[in-house]
């Protein structure tokens, strides 16, 4: 059996050499000495970052479409799906002249995720019918205050600039591979 690692205990007398303990001690010293030259497991965090899984679930992003309009329509499905009740939002109607900002007639004027409540399960991402919210490989930064963990639209919505957009191609590809 693979899992059976039990050994039969033998209660035999130690020989003289064993009683000296010195061979055992020297053997132990050599084991630790081998570890001295081993590759270290430490990752020097700020300089080197551990490679994350392609479907890693980190800080959320609220996506914009190709024309820079927010995808979110404040339907509230993400908030309903959220098991930790971390998402709150306030819906508002798009005014004339705001067509460049919001894709549909309704949008979220306030959209907040409490990062202390969030369990990063990704259900909001699955619930979203508009491909507006995604989890990314970014890590939520630490803070000294609880208030600092309530992320509003300023932190969640991705920038308009095309070159500052949050790239999700790797993540979407991995998802597609998993689903097919």
């Amino acid at each position, binding site marked *: 059996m693979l899992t059976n690692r039990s050994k039969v205990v033998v209660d035999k007398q130690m020989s003289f050499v064993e009683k000296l303990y010195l061979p055992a*001690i020297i053997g*132990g*010293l050599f*084991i*630790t*000495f081998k*570890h*001295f030259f*081993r*590759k*270290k*497991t*430490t990752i*020097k965090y700020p300089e080197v970052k551990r490679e994350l899984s392609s479907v890693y679930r980190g800080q959320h992003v609220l996506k914009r479409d190709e024309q820079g309009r927010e995808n979110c329509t404040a339907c509230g499905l993400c908030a309903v799906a959220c098991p930790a009740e971390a998402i709150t939002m306030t819906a508002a109607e798009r005014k004339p002249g705001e067509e460049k900002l919001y894709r549909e007639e309704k949008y979220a004027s306030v959209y907040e995720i409490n990062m202390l409540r969030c369990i990063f399960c990704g259900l909001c991402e699955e619930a979203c019918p508009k491909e507006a919210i995604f989890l990314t490989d970014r890590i939520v930064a630490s803070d000294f205050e609880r208030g600092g963990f309530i992320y509003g639209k300023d932190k969640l919505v991705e920038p308009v600039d095309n070159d500052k957009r949050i790239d999700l191609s790797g993540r979407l590809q991995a998802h597609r591979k998993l689903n097919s």
Partner: protein
Amino acid sequence: MEVADLIFKVIFVLAVFGISLLVAMYSTYAERKVAAFFQDRLGPNRAGPFGILQPLADGVKMFMKEEIIPTNSDKALFILGPSIAMLTACMTGVVIPWGNSLIINGKEFVMQITDVNIGILYIFGVVSIGVYGIMIGGWASNNKFSLLGSLRASSQMISYELAMGMSIIAIVMMSGTLSVREIVLGQPGGHWNVLYQPLGFLLFFICALAETNRTPFDLPECETELVGGYHTEYSSMKLGFYLFAEYINMFISSAVIVCLYFGGYNFPFIESLGLSHNVVSLLGTGIFFIKIFFFIFVFMWIRWTIPRFRYDQLMRVGWKVLLPLAVLNIVITAIVLLWKNDLFSLNF
């Protein structure tokens, strides 16, 4: 004493003091690095390149920490404890011959603070006083853990000093002197005492581990049983002094081991290099320090390999194993010396 002598001595005393503090400082850094490497980690690497400034950061931290003297403690003794520990740790370096001699302007300066003709006894005396630092500190804290730690320390020191002294007697019989310098001079080139006294060296080394309270003999301060042992109640630089004294002791113990068993500043082929006297002396000092650093590394190596003894095991090893073996070592040495004298009329 001439003025030149005096100036040399003053400079030399300051140098020895400074170097022992520096080595102790970087021993703390080395300890953490070595520990980390043995455990597949990297150790401190944030303060400066490779964390080289870590001891400074630690020192600043120690000084800035809040100083707590417990209300129920004996204040005078509480302060005296770490002071004695530090003082005795710094005093032992006096009789160590750090090098041969330097010839400056045709005058010979011996690289040793003072060559006491009972150098080894002096080291033993000072080290024994060092126990008082731990004992007084533990007693003055008025804390059960501290008291237990200091009790353990004192009984351990007394037990292991015996075996240590016995193993040195064999060396003294061979070299016929108590002066550390003359013992070193008696091991020219590669004729180190360890070749003639392997058992004595082993005993001395084990006892040195016990004397410096290093693992596997760190019962006075074992965290798992006694919180911090004798320094449970200490904080700030008083704690720093205790920890620092341990590292200085480690440095000095390594130096003593090297002097007694590994030829001090002597190294093989010293004569065949054909260098001038001063260069050879300085080279010897460098070799001496390399040997010392090796032993400091071994001390750390052992600490991060072997678990701590149980208390009864500690006492059994001390009294029932090391002491009889040390006596046996003396007897064997005596027989061999007599046999050599009789058969070949050879003197060491």
